[in-house]
């Protein structure tokens, strides 16, 4: 049973990590709480479904096409609707939630409320330590690790990474140092949305495609990034596994309370931030003026 708990905890943590990294990135850099993040994840999943099932394209090609398409849509929506209101913290919330609802409604009109399935790149399962793991889950886990490493390398080793991090630290000074803050923000948004789209390709096949599918992941992602510390990518990664394990433990140890797994995960998040108000790896905010 312990083996099953470990394996299940790791796989569900990997899935959450994949979803949370992009969200964390755009918050860390642009201080934008993008409530439409998981809506982009849903959009990518629906596009893959359209390309693969309606147009009959090869699954891998569909994934690539939809990641590109969603990134473009994401950057455009950043430019058109998020950037104009970015000085108004509250307006951003509403604009992004409105964006999410728009995506949801367009999906509902185009595909109806019927559940669908995203064609997966791989199928079947393997046994690890006696617990069954679908290849899809392994893939999601592996890609989450790779993406984490890539993001890390990008942020620490490249010029763009320095620009992104300095913008995150202090927009105005970064601007004075000759960094094109507006462009950096847009690139980050592009990266974040692309990550959401990749999550759509890897996570959505494990789930069901329906127009309300962005709501639950949004809550979990919010809990994860808060738990890990807003803006800290490492924190999001750790947070994802903590909540993944917490949910698995609930299912195994209190089977009659399996429906409480979300509530338990949220409670853990609450306890952590009540003890450490800046999350596990977050930087304590200076008193902003």
């Amino acid at each position, binding site marked *: 049973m312990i083996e099953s708990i470990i394996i*299940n905890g790791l796989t569900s943590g990997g899935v959450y990590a994949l979803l949370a990294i992009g969200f964390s990135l755009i918050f860390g850099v642009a201080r934008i709480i993008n409530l439409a993040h998981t809506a982009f994840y849903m959009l990518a999943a629906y596009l893959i479904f359209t390309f693969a099932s309606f147009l009959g394209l090869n699954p891998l090609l569909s994934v690539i096409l939809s990641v590109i398409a969603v990134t473009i849509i994401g950057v455009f929506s950043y430019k058109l609707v998020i950037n104009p209101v970015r000085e108004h913290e509250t307006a951003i919330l509403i604009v992004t939630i409105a964006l999410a609802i728009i995506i949801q409604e367009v999906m509902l009109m185009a595909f109806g409320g019927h559940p669908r*399935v995203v064609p997966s790149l791989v199928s079947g*399962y393997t046994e690890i330590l006696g617990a069954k793991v679908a290849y899809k889950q392994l893939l999601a886990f592996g890609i989450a690790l790779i993406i984490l490493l890539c993001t890390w390398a990008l942020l620490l080793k490249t010029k763009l990474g320095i620009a992104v991090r300095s913008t995150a630290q202090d927009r105005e000074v970064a601007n004075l140092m000759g960094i094109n803050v507006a462009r950096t923000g847009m690139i980050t948004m592009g990266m974040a949305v692309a990550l959401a789209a990749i999550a759509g390709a890897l996570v959505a096949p494990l789930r069901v495609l329906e127009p309300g599918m962005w709501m639950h992941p949004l809550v979990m992602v919010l809990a994860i990034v808060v738990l890990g510390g807003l803006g800290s990518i490492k924190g999001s990664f750790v947070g994802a596994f903590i909540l993944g394990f917490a949910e698995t433990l609930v299912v195994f140890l209190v*089977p009659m309370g399996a429906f409480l797994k979300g509530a338990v995960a949220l409670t853990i998040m609450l306890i952590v931030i009540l003890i450490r108000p800046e999350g596990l790896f977050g930087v304590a905010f200076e008193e902003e003026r």
Partner: protein
Amino acid sequence: MKRVMKGAIILLLACLVGVATSCGPAAAAKEIKIGVIGPMAYVQGEHHWYGALLAAEEINAQGGILVGDEWYQVTLVKVDSNEMVSVPDAASAMERAITVDKVDFLVGGFRTEAVFAMQDVAMDYAKIFLGCGASTPELCTRVADDYDRYKYWFRVTPMNSTYLGSVDFMLLGMVAEKIRAELGIEVPKVAILAEKAVWADPIVAGAKQLLPAIGMEVVGEWRPSPTATDVTAELSAIEAAGAHMIFTSFSGPVGVPYAAQWGELEIPAASVGINVEAQKEGFWDATGGKGNYEMTMNTYARVNITDETIPFIDRFIARVGEFPTYSAGTYEALYILKAAIERAGTLDSDAVVAELENTDRIGTAGRTVFTSDHDVTWGPGYVVGLGVQWQDGEMKCVWPPPGGEWEGVDYEGAVDYILPPWMVEAWGP
């Protein structure tokens, strides 16, 4: 940029006004307005509408409804309750249908919390509301508790969850027999996997009490949320518990990921019970074919429950291109209503209620007779429900079993239940 946006807003507003003014009432002499209320963006609501539409077209083609000595045409009003998202929306939609659209009768409703609210509104106006979606017994116990107020409510489909439980145990018994016969396991172990919902509670409690008495062992009870999107942990735990059967009670969207993950991971346990998602035609595609061998209770399958069933299914598919789910019971509701109105000879609610209580109709899902609290009568010769199994992309009727082993009920077209092959492989001798 700004100017374009401003133009867009003005255009949008202009469109709104245009649409609103063009939606005047379509006048027609001698009509009965029936509101079809449901979540129209979802399968349940769509089938509410399709079922009613088919019935209304047929009735009108035959001349309509004879009230006294005058023929009335049926006019349907499509009412989107938006009940999946918002309960106040559903109640407002109901009131709008009654006071603005001036409907005479209502059929539909799906999500219990919303149906309670809609029921109250309909009762406030003494409008007859034929429920075609929610299975909660409490909706009908209200009739018993306060007859004068709630007598305008009837449930046409599905049967209430107490009876759902009884059929569940027969399905379990049949599969357990199969496991004993084919795999030589004398006391099959059962894992209860039921969504956390009030309707499932008595079924779970009953299972824990009754199953040991009929030679099965309960190894655990898992209660995920009806909207859970991932049950792999539950499935792993069930497999670790060594279960031979998974007894499901799902009405929510969790039924799809459950079946998909059950098939993907080839969990070696037969899946038996209720999975509303598996009753829908789209289930096979929604699970990407992984839902093969999933079994669920259902209302319709291509078997002759009565002589009406198969012709109805054929007409339904010809009209809307989909296999009917249980909420298409609005078809029945309209015919039941027609008969009651014609017997009463008036549209007066109280008179029609009195005649609805005398309903005895051989319909598409069985013989409908209302109980004293306006619920569906269950039992051999009335409505019993079906057990269906997905077999290679087709939904086949497997219960009542072929050969009339249960109460002599034998439907033409029923086939034998098949254990999932990976299960036979895992437990086989």
